């Protein structure tokens, strides 16, 4: 194999082979220290080489916390170290370990008992402790993650022999299969076995015979056999990080988060090896045997010159053979109980045993094997301690889940293939084959993680992520944190990036030893998703922009110099300005004057619009709205309020009767969805003949209002707009400038005016037509702010601004909208209740007595204490003073009474008035 790629490590170019991972390329180039530990900044090297420990976290192309050992190289990739300063090999912050005595277990809980202490210490701690940092500004952030939603009949997690057999069998039986594996290549541990002698082709549906040979090759052939199936989708380098409700598997693959729903789940996640606990077991050069085998047999690395193998097997087992074959001398094979400590500063120099000091540059640890049963446990399986296996094994699996391979506690290849195939057939609903019930062939026998008492001086690490030693855990137990769940929370052991993979078993072991019970009696900590760290960006998903709704006249407003405001998803003109520097108040007042003195026009296309049709439409509206609509005459419109059962106002608008069985409803801009669902809800299951159609987007609307509105509209329509023919609160269909329109004569702003609704595609045309026709009257477009002022002068409330989640029509001075003589309507009981009892608060109108202009939300005070609040207040050009609406205690609500408004540091006097502030008799809108 030749080098053909180049990566950069801290800007230094490093040659790499195409099959390399970042870790194997760096190792081949001589790098031994891959990271610095979380707290003490101790040097750390490759430990598991399988993506399960925290030791090789690096920054790749700007993304922090990427595991070097499972990330394949890509030409030009930029890799950088993290959590070390100035460099990995010489980290000044490593001096923190000299202060280890100052950071006892439970440091945070014991030290930061006052807020100010944490404030002082936090910046320092943040600098010293931690994982990678996020670089740059949000603008340089890597592209966002995408989310995919997928389905499958069978999901197989784990691409080792059992998973491959399961996937092949299920696919052969016709199922749609997704196979998820977290390594770069399928095959699991077979990849790093030097030889496989068993004949296994009878156990997997493969075209070619698979007879034996190098593990890597056999695995390659198995992988090819599975990939042959068109109905198997392989997700490799993908982590199934959690099983959620509804059999939803969360899978992270590269920059994607896949939501996979599968009918059946087969877990063939195998086992992983964890370290033995002895002093300095974290020095670079101490490696797990599985890591050693992988690096030798897959990446062809020479890991050192002389190795000490810590193993129960006298000859050191297969790993010793592999080491020898790769040219590493075996200095000694040491049983775990003989190990005393590893010596060396930045890397292994020797292994001190009970008998001797063995010079070596590599310590290979045959550690305990832990069945990777987290997903099974999330699926509902129990994890039961098995003394012989030395492991927690999954039991009582739910119907939809099956397990195969080493995760079940069987270490034989044949067993894995048979069980995998069985699980695959069963998941696909196919009959099982013969001889599929063989019991375990080679039961797992995992060594214990702890072997002899340790000295209190040295550091024997249990949790690599959080730098927790045996001593820390023992001290915590002396302090009373004896239960595994509390021990975990107090020490934070098992809570780091490895999610307990490396440290759960040793923690349980320490717990069990101190309490003198079996590990089964200690139990495991609960497995919760995610089983591996998931970047927040992956959960957040793509940076979707916010949907924006624009009215058909949007461009025209823009050209007219409009200042926008957001109303829900809609963009609405707040006011218009020809000159960007013109003050808002002047612009708004000009718009206001146009309406009061001449004519103004406002785009109302954002109003919610419903077409309610059917013979039972009157019945439905009588039930849902507080006032009565069955007696509304065709050609008439009425103000309309919706309440909930408690009598609280939910929405308001107008309802016009277009035909005996057809109404046109407007709702407030933000509430259309709600009102539509509300109407449909009350119609659901009643058998009423009624159809509710949302026509909001289909219709544009313009309100033309002002003393000259009639003259203006007369120029463009033949509809008779005379006061007799088209009275206030009348409505009709008619043609305007050749466009079929629905016209309503309403008075929200308090002047003669028509709301004209028409098909949205004529939006620009009619807007321009009105502007043109109004030129001789000096018509002016007005925005939301002028409308708020105009309606406030008329004391018209805006639901949600002047009312809140407790306002009833009684308190809001709208009692007349509730027709209590109707048999029934939604909210009748609640309104009756509000009526029958003295109101606590009332909505009142007020006029300021001096020149001050309070802000919306200002408090109303009594004896210097806040007792009420202003909901809307504006300077009223008609009054020459500010006017507004406020909620005040009922005993302060009488007209004529003076109230105090809190105004930054002082109080302003206002007087409560009963009538609208402008045209109290409402004559103008009726002209």
């Amino acid at each position, binding site marked *: 194999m030749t080098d053909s790629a180049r990566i950069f490590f801290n800007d230094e170019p490093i040659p790499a082979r195409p099959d390399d991972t970042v870790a194997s390329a760096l190792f081949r180039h001589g790098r031994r220290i891959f990271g610095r530990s979380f707290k003490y900044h101790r040097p750390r090297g490759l430990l598991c080489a399988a993506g399960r420990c925290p030791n090789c976290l690096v920054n790749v192309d700007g993304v922090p916390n990427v595991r070097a050992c499972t990330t394949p190289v890509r030409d030009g990739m930029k890799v950088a170290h993290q959590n070390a300063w100035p460099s990995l090999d010489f980290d000044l912050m490593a001096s923190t370990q000299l202060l280890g005595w100052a950071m006892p277990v439970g440091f945070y809980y014991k030290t930061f008992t006052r807020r100010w202490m944490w404030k002082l210490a936090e910046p320092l701690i943040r600098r010293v402790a931690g994982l990678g940092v996020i670089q740059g500004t949000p603008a340089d952030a890597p592209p966002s993650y995408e989310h995919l939603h997928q389905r499958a009949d069978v999901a197989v997690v784990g691409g080792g022999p059992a998973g491959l057999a399961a996937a092949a069998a299920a696919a052969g039986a016709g199922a749609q299969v997704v196979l998820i594996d977290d390594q770069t290549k399928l095959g699991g541990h077979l990849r790093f076995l030097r030889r496989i002698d068993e004949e296994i082709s009878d156990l997997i549906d493969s075209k070619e015979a698979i007879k034996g040979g190098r593990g890597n090759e056999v695995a390659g052939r198995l992988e090819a056999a599975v990939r042959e199936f068109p109905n198997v989708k392989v997700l490799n380098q993908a982590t199934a990080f959690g099983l959620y*409700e509804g059999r939803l598997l969360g899978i992270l693959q590269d920059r994607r988060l896949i939501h996979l729903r599968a009918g059946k789940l087969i877990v063939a996640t195998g086992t992983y090896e964890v370290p033995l606990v002895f002093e300095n077991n974290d020095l670079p050069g101490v490696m797990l045997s599985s890591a050693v085998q992988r690096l030798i047999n897959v990446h062809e690395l020479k890991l050192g010159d002389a190795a000490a193998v810590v193993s129960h097997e006298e000859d050191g087992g297969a790993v010793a053979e592999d080491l020898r074959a790769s040219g590493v001398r075996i200095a000694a094979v040491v049983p775990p109980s003989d190990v005393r400590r590893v010596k060396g500063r930045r890397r292994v120099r020797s292994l001190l045993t009970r008998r001797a000091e063995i010079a070596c540059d590599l310590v290979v640890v045959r550690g305990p094997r832990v069945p990777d049963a987290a997903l099974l446990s999330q699926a509902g399986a129990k994890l039961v301690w098995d003394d012989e296996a030395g492991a927690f094994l999954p039991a009582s699996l739910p119907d939809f889940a099956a397990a195969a391979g080493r995760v079940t506690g069987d270490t034989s290849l044949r067993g894995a293939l048979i069980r995998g195939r069985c699980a695959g057939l069963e998941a696909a609903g196919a009959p099982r084959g013969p001889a599929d019930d063989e019991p375990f062939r080679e039961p797992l026998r995992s060594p214990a993680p702890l072997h002899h008492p340790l000295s209190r001086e040295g550091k024997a690490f249990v949790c690599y992520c959080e730098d927790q030693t045996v001593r820390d855990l023992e001290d915590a137990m002396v302090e009373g944190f004896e239960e595994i769940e509390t021990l975990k929370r107090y020490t934070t052991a098992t809570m780091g990036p490895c999610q307990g993979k490396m440290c759960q078993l040793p923690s349980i072991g320490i717990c069990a030893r101190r309490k003198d019970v079996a590990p089964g009696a200690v139990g495991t900590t609960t497995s919760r998703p995610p089983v591996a760290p998931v970047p927040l960006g992956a959960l957040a998903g793509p940076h979707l922009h916010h949907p924006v709704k624009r009215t058909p006249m949007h461009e025209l407003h823009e050209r007219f110099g409009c200042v926008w405001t957001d109303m829900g998803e809609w963009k609405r003109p707040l006011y218009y300005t020809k000159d960007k520097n013109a003050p808002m108040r002047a612009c708004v007042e000009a718009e206001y004057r146009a309406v009061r003195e001449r004519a103004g026009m406002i785009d109302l296309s954002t109003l919610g619009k419903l077409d309610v049709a059917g013979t039972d439409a009157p019945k439905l509206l009588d039930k849902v709205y507080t006032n009565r609509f069955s007696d509304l005459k065709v050609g008439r419109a009425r103000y309309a309020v919706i309440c909930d059962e408690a009598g609280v106002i939910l929405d308001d608008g107008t309802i016009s009767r277009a035909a005996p069985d057809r109404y046109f409803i407007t709702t407030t801009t933000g509430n259309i969805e709600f009102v539509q*669902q509300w109407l449909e809800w009350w119609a*659901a*299951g009643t058998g009423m003949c009624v159809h509710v159609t949302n026509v909001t987007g289909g219709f544009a609307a313009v309100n033309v209002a002002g003393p000259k509105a009639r003259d203006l509209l007369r120029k463009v329509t033949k509809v008779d707009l005379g006061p007799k023919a088209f009275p206030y609160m009348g409505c009709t269909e008619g043609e305007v400038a050749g466009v079929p329109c629905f016209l309503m004569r309403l008075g929200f702003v308090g002047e003669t005016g028509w709301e004209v609704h028409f098909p949205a595609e004529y939006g620009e045309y009619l807007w321009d037509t009105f502007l043109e026709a109004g030129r001789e009257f000096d018509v002016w477009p007005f925005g939301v702010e002028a409308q708020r002022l105009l309606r406030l002068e008329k004391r018209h409330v805006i639901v949600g601004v002047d009312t809140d989640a407790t306002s009833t029509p009684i308190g809001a001075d709208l009692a007349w909208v509730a027709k209590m003589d109707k048999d029934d309507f939604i909210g009748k*009981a609640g309104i009756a209740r509000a009526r029958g009892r003295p109101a606590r608060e009332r909505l009142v109108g007020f006029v300021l007595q001096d020149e001050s202009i309070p802000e919306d939300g200002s408090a109303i005070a009594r004896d210097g204490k806040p007792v009420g609040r202003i909901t809307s207040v504006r300077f009223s050009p008609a009054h020459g003073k500010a006017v507004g609406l406020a909620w005040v205690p009922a005993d302060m609500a009488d007209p004529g009474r003076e109230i105090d408004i809190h105004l930054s540091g002082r109080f302003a006097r206002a007087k409560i008035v009963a009538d609208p502030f402008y045209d109290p008799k409402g004559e103008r809108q009726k002209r």
Partner: protein
Amino acid sequence: MSFLLKCPNCGDRSVYEFRFGGKLKPRPAADATEGEWLRYSYEHENAAGPQREWWYHRLGCRQWFFAVRDTCANSVEATFFPEEGA
């Protein structure tokens, strides 16, 4: 909350497509006592076990329907339109 809900119209969909309408409660008669109305408006039982609930397929066919859901297991036993009784 990642279970699937079967819309009687559209079939199994992610629960995020739906709006939850609460437990089905018989609405008191128009002349019921104030106490009955207060209980109806403000008291929510939250009982363990299967209950009949309103759901609305917001991002689909926009229909209201019933689901019988076990509040302990969060499993849905049946879904149907109100007209379909059951």
